């Protein structure tokens, strides 16, 4: 049903905009807040992201994944681009970076984003320090160098943890895709 929102937007149906904002506004805004340097930046980024979503909606293919992950991909690419262009300052609210991420039960994500469900399962298999590296890098916008400094860890270890963690997630996503294919 949610994929219809993107399909309608792709066909130029402006009436789907509000539904899209209802469905994905919180996801985009939460990401923008985490990966922007100031509240003003987060608002500008959110506007750019939704413009990107209107333009890219026709690329969404439900067979390839959930709309939430598609939206998150669009949002992250825009936010990373903005971070890259910005000066080297810590992301907004550095104290928030110290907070742990509240990971939901994987089953609770199954309906809205099966890939996210698999990601939670993959992360559960990681060692705590590997998981922390991914949290700081992917959810708090710290660079690998910043992670190394914060955790007192060699940069090479940060890269290695990041690589292994994403490979683990990738394996789970692949398993999920194969499972979907097997069931269909």
């Amino acid at each position: 049903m949610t994929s219809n929102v993107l399909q309608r937007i792709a066909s130029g149906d402006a009436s789907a905009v509000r539904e899209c904002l209802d469905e994905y506004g919180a996801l985009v805004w939460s990401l923008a807040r985490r990966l922007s340097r100031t509240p003003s930046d987060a608002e500008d980024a959110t506007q750019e992201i939704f413009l990107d979503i209107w333009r890219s909606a026709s690329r969404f293919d439900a067979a390839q994944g959930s709309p939430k992950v598609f939206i998150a991909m669009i949002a992250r690419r825009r936010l990373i681009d903005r971070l890259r262009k910005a000066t080297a300052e810590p992301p907004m609210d550095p104290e928030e970076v110290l907070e742990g991420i509240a990971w939901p039960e994987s089953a609770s994500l199954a309906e809205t984003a099966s890939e996210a469900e698999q990601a939670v399962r993959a992360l559960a298999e990681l060692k705590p320090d590997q998981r922390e590296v991914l949290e700081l890098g992917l959810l708090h916008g710290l660079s690998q160098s910043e992670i190394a400094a914060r955790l007192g860890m060699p940069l090479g270890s940060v890269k290695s943890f990041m690589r292994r963690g994403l490979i683990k997630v990738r394996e789970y996503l692949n398993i999920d895709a194969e499972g979907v294919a097997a069931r269909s």
Partner: protein
Amino acid sequence: MSAKGPRTQPPEEFIDLLIKQVTEGLLPDEALKLDELDAATAIACREELERSVAAVTVAGTAADAVALPMPLRLRLEQQATVYFSSPVQQPPGRPAEQPALGAGAMVDRRPNLSVPLADRLTRSVADTGSRRAAAARPARNTGPLGWWAAAACLLLALFAWFRPVAAPTAADLRTRLLDEPNVIKVRLDATQDPAAAGVHGDVVWDPRAQRGYLHFEGLPRNDPGAEQYQIWIFDADRDARYPIDGGLFNVASRDEDVVVPIHVLVPVHVAKAFAVTIEKAGGVVVSTRDHVVAIGQAG
């Protein structure tokens, strides 16, 4: 633009560069290095990696997502109204622009997401091997160790590919690009801006590969902490008020012969003009065009 020493690239470095590109962005020299390794492979792998990262992101924000503030939501609705009533909006049935996912997803190079990453890595590397070493490698099946299998293949291909020679500079790569078919070359002319006095240069742009290089002489030195040069590409298929950002660069000396790569994050359909502006450090999303130092019309 930057000369580097002898290359001995393990596959981990290639993958690490891709991960860095997806998680925090690359510095210009890192982007150049990734491009040198194999732009096609990087493009093919990037979207798959982004999907994994996005899946973690969705999971990590699910428990504490924050609703859009109402003023922002209203602005978004107004923005959408303008967008959907604009004549430059993509008409239904036409492949959409891919501003967020499009840097590596041009029509002729878009990765097939139905093919697993490990397979694509293997196939792409095999293609590279066949191009460069006349030794095609078959695709592998993906399994729990698929990525490592692909990495092993990548290692073999990279060893075959890389020779212990100095990395090409941006100027070298520009020269090579000139030999590619369908590449356009555009002369850049100085404007009346005081900073543009004596400036001349050109752009080499490959529409298929979506990459190119600016070549300049006479640009004055800039203070990177205060302002930077920013490249813009005007796409015939887009609103001329919003040219595509082609990246930032600095000039160390007016005497410097500057060659800089153009990095676009959205696909350029028909490049009709190129421009260079002076902007605040870090660049801008939309230029006020107060300081346009050079401009060139294609065709």
